[in-house]
């Protein structure tokens, strides 16, 4: 009995200890980096105290009773045949009810607090696809300077100004207009979760739009992933939120408002021709991907306009680092081989074609 109690108690202590001070956990809910996650953590810690108390009383009680009243060899006694004690029953009905009622007060007020959508928050639409995230900046001052001045659109990485309140609108879209590898595109339920910044909300296809309101206290990179089972690659549908300081944010917005850079270097130019099919070769990319300032405006796949910008740290469901050239080449060679079920088909690209495309993609700063 003793072993059991120390085991359980030890686990609890280690849990709290490890979680509170670990800085190496990029998705640690107990190391919040913004007021939303902080509020949610505070509530949990608030509840953990009475929970720990109950744990000690109950488990400690069971342990003490087990030791105190265990049968000792040779001593056969028939214990008093107690049937109950009504006042005790009333007591241990009312006391937990009171504790729970007390817990529910801050719980309910926080539910309402977190549901508020401040009018001056920055609006960003989050789009869930199988299996990547797209972000669309819908505020009027976030329009692009080209074409029909649509919203700035990125994928995999959401860039935000540190300290500013953001209001996310969560939508679930299909994988796009078609799929050439036989796997149809579907709207499914996802969930958007960046633990250090906010608790998750589900992304429901159809006309329901859920909201998350949050801000990041400090500039930095915050990690997140889809948290509602959404099919084959649910486990690798990740994203990052990069919070920039004021100057960095200005700079980023300006760069994003510009159309895609036109490559000057030879290999990159070849890549661009392949991408758009200008010379009769290739051209499949623009069936799904968009490049700002060009005719490529499809939305079935991530927007690649600023693929190689500094903040765009990852690609393909934020599964690979953008700077990892080998990973990018492997992806282009056969997406399904590196990510089973990926909706991007294998176009049978030759290594030379891949090199050219990579050069083009890296030119899109």
């Amino acid at each position, binding site marked *: 009995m003793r072993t059991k109690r120390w085991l359980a108690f030890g686990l609890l202590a280690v*849990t709290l200890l490890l979680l509170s001070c670990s800085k190496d956990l990029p998705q640690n*809910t107990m190391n919040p980096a913004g007021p939303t996650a902080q509020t949610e953590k505070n509530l949990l810690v608030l509840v953990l105290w009475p929970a720990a108390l109950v744990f000690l009383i109950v488990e400690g009680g069971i342990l003490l009773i087990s030791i105190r009243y265990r049968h000792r060899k040779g001593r056969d006694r028939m214990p008093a*045949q107690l049937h109950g004690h009504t006042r005790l029953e009333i007591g241990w009905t009312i006391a937990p009810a009171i504790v729970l009622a007390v817990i529910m007060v801050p*719980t309910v007020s926080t539910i309402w607090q977190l549901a508020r959508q401040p009018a001056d928050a920055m609006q960003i639409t989050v789009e869930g696809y199988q299996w990547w995230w797209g972000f669309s900046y819908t505020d009027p001052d976030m329009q692009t300077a080209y074409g029909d001045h649509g919203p700035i659109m990125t994928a995999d990485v959401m860039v935000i100004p540190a300290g500013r309140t953001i209001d996310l609108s969560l939508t679930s879209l299909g994988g796009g207009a078609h799929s050439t590898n036989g796997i149809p595109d579907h709207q499914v339920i996802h969930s958007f979760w960046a633990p250090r910044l906010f608790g998750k909300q589900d992304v429901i296809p159809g006309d329901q739009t859920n909201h998350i309101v949050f801000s990041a206290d400090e500039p930095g990179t915050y990690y997140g992933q889809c948290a509602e089972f959404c099919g084959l690659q649910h486990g690798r549908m990740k994203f990052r939120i990069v919070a920039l300081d004021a100057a960095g944010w200005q700079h980023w917005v300006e760069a994003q408002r510009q159309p895609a850079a036109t490559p000057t270097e030879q290999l990159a130019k070849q890549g661009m021709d392949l991408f758009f099919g200008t010379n009769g070769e290739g051209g499949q990319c623009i069936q799904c991907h968009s490049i700002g300032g060009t005719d490529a405006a499809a939305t079935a796949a991530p927007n690649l306009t600023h693929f190689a910008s500094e903040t765009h740290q990852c690609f393909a469901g934020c599964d690979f680092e953008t700077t990892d050239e080998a990973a990018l080449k492997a992806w282009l060679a056969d997406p399904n081989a590196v990510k089973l079920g990926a909706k991007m088909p294998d176009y049978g690209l030759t290594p030379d074609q891949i090199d050219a495309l990579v050069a083009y993609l890296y030119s899109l700063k």
Partner: protein
Amino acid sequence: MATAASVPAHRGIIRRPTATTGWLSWFTTIDHKKIGILYGVSAFAFFLVGGAEALLIRAQLAKPDNTLLNADQYNQIFTMHGLTMIFLFVMPMSAAFFNYFIPLMIGARDVAFPRLNAFSYWLFLFGGLFLYSSWFLGGAPNGGWFGYPPNSTTDPSIGMTFYAIGLILTGIASSAGAINLAVTVINMRAPGMTFFRMPVFVWMGLVVQFLLAFSLPIVTVALFEMLFDRRWQTNFFEPAAGGKPLLWQNLFWLFAHPEVYILILPAFGIISEILPVFSRKPLFGYQFVVFSGIAIGFIGFGVWAHHMFAVGLGPVANTAFGITTAIIAVPTGIKIFNWMGTMYGGDLHFDTPMLMAVGAVSMFVIGGLSGVTHAVVPSDYQQTDTYYVVAHFHYVLFGGAVFGLFGGIYYWWPKVFARMLNEFWGKVQFWIMLIGFNLTFGPMHILGLGGMIRREYTYPASLGLTFWNQVATVGAFLIALSVLIFIVNAIVTQLRKPGLENEDPWDARTLEWTTSSPPPVYNFEEIPVVHALDEFWHRKYAEDKEGRLIRVPAGASDDAPDTHREHAIHLPSPSFWPLVAALGLPVIGYGVLYSWWLVGAGALLAIVGFIGWAMEPPVAD
């Protein structure tokens, strides 16, 4: 019911079997005890399969970016692990205990509808086999046990169609069983066995049957809607046509929340029987334990959306369900305190059944506490869909239900099989299982709060949670070792000759222990007349004027079986029609998947089965 004079002498369509021994008799049995054993053996076999699936999961997650299982295989395995453990292990194992012991505990000869009982068993087995046949017919279900559409309705693999049909089949089996056992408890109690003289195990059984009867129809509708969406492109959950995926979630959880009480209440009943026997004093607060069980049953229908706190129901709904979820913690707490009160001041004998029961209570408390943290809705936005939830439900389901069921296995083994499981190895199993269990699921609290989502087939090293994943994997294999120890114990035990030195090895309290081990097919020579709660105990012990117990002189009580009476005890004969009727239904299921001819064939088989059933005489000629 027919009287002897009024049933015309006739045959059924085919001669009704009579044999109650031999291997064939297991297929025609309608004896609740044999059916209980069938349930128990089948459930345990599925436990091993579900456990193997768990080991595969843990092996895959032992390392970051592991390639033991690919995404597709993993999704099928975790889905089948959940389905197997819930529908093919815990529920039928509970049914095994209910079937074997409810009639004995209430002083009845069998359940209300013995052939319906057999039908339920066979349909459960066929439903489970139907579900597992999917592995060989294109792929197992891969959408999680909860099967959220649109993912589950649009997944191109055939697995989720097997899911919908398979669960409809097992649901029908459970529904029939629920009506059967509810009527048995309400209508077939021995004279003097008022409701408040029933053992708590029987009470919990009664609540479970009503939970089943009222929750299964709701999920059955949901499953048909999913089946129709998948098979005939209806629009129930199709957003493009205006369908709402959340409709599934509401219907599903309206069933699945009561389902978790269906899963735990049988174990609570077993614990409520074991603790008094091994503490040698009555259950503390019997009425409160009973009423809290009933309360849990009712309130359990009012908390379902706490599984949906993050889907955007809005602050009003979240507030309401947060509050009801907090409320349901109260009756659960009452049980725990009463169990502690039972042990307090007792003479505690820590034989394996007692170890399992106390272990179950302690582990359930941990799961219950993490459950309370889920009720704190905004904190649940962080907890839900992470390993923190996996930790919670395994603490209540494995810690609570599985330990409780093992307690029942060790406790009642001598009654069913007339042999005692080895006590030393039982204790070894307990400790290894307890340690392994805590090593597996304890760290999952850390994994969840540390940022690991559920249902992911892999994770990167950069998540920083590799170590605790490894610990969990080690724990899982320890659990497997403990189960292996149990299996060896069981086999070695059964190889011995049957025969108990002491037919009341635990000095127990309830009526099943008044029979021989195993009980004769008719259970009781004479239906007992009940005068008190814990009737058997009161036949053995009387209270002196200080309230202390003294053993009643031998022969003064009427518990000694009277072997000289000649009675005509009327029992219905075995029958194979329930099996035939049950067989028709999965054939219909295959027909829905493949061919209308099969639907017809299955329907015909079922109808023939039911007509044969209706037409056969109550006893063989």
